[in-house]
């Protein structure tokens, strides 16, 4: 029992030390082990298996409907070896669910084929688009290395605001649609009436034939 008491007294004396030690280990654990994912670079996302990162030189653009503009994306090789041949692709989407965006209308050249990028270097890729939809839109670039499975790098989005033009459906649509045929109809009726009155007047005064 004495031994037991002694043991208990020994254990009892060591408990505060053990508690402090446990506390220190628990506090140090998150810093020592990667419990959260490292946040990616602000403008580039590197896919697993690929050393390529895509960055856009421009973050926001304001344009008018119909305006053409050019921006540059930089494909950077962050790895220690040259990349494999890659394919860069441009896409456009609208933040308004009521706006239908057809990327083919924005640019006919949305895919570019890239040579291998040496380690540590970068390749600029230029894109020219025409703003054919108004509103708030996002443009982003993806890069795929076909020889690497599941390797897709995507850029941060370019935030685009396109100002609309005046809509066609102003007050002039209906008057135009009704007015032009009405004027021609009135002319046709007037001409017919004149021709009939001339016919009634006699053949000598009828100068029209057919």
């Amino acid at each position, binding site marked *: 029992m004495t031994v037991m008491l002694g043991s208990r007294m020994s254990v009892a004396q060591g408990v505060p030390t053990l508690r402090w030690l446990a506390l220190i280990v628990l506090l140090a654990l998150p810093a020592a082990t990667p419990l959260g994912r490292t946040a990616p670079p602000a403008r580039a996302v590197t896919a697993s298996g690929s050393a390529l990162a895509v960055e856009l030189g421009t973050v926001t653009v304001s344009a008018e*409907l*119909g305006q053409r503009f050019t921006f540059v994306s930089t494909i950077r090789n962050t790895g220690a070896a040259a990349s494999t041949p890659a394919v860069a692709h441009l896409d456009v989407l609208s933040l308004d669910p*009521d*706006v*239908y965006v057809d990327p083919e*209308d924005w640019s006919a050249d949305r895919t570019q084929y890239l040579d291998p990028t040496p380690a540590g270097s970068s390749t600029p890729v230029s894109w020219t688009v*025409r*703003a*054919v*939809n*108004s509103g708030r839109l996002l443009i982003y670039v993806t890069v795929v290395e076909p020889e690497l499975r599941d390797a897709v790098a995507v850029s941060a989005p370019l935030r685009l605001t396109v100002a609309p*033009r*005046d*809509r*066609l*459906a102003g007050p*002039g*649509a*209906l008057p*135009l*649609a*009704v007015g*032009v*045929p009405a004027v*021609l*109809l009135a*002319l*046709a009726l007037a*001409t*017919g009436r004149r*021709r009939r009155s001339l016919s009634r007047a006699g053949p000598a005064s009828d*100068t*029209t*034939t*057919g």
Partner: protein
Amino acid sequence: MTTPTDSSARSVAGWLVVAERELRDLWVGGRGLWLLVAYASLLSVTSYLTATDQALNFLEQREAVNVTVQLTVAVGGLLVLLVAADAVSGERDRGTLETLLLTPVSRRSLVVGKSVAAMSLWFAAFGVAVPYLAYLARGVDLTGVAIVVGLGVGTLLAVCLAGYGLAISCRSGSSRFSLALSLFGLLAIFAPTQLPASVQRAWAGEWLQRIDPITAGLHYVSEVIVSGRPPARDATWLIGPVLAAVLAVAVALAIAGRLALRPGGRP
């Protein structure tokens, strides 16, 4: 004895007289105006539906202008063809061709005068289309381009169709046959526009489109209006329409020189 100067002066005066008569018959007689009423109604429906589409994006506005120009060219050309196809064969049907051939007007002057009346329909149709084009194109700054390109290409195609219709009319025994053959030919010329896109992109398909004056002309109009390309860049597409217009006029004048009371008879 008439001098060459007297003959040419009479010839010039002759076609003017015929043209004035035909124009009066077409416009004062009322036929032309009723055709324009129907044509303007068609333009009104398509333009109004296009203009009231709230979701129209920028490219579709350009396409709306392009569709209106192409509709103008197509229907205007059809009107020209209808009048030209009836020009001589109609006189045969009505029994007035003999009287016409007895006048001191050369056969070629006769046909030229009738072609002037046919072409007047094209210019009138385009004039009717101008307000629609101006309204649709104002949002995309295309009014001037649409009018110039539409007038230029449309006039080339109208000349081609007028020559074609007159040639058939001179050789046809009846107006019915002349109209049927003319419309069949028009459908055949329009057929390449219905080819699948993959066929149109192949080298044979592209050459077929370039040779066909209608497809070549409409392709050029699309490239300038929808794609926004400079007019000179795709000017090679106009070679087909120009050659077709020249050929049609030459054939029509050659056939007109041998115009007889009955088709195939001695002039």
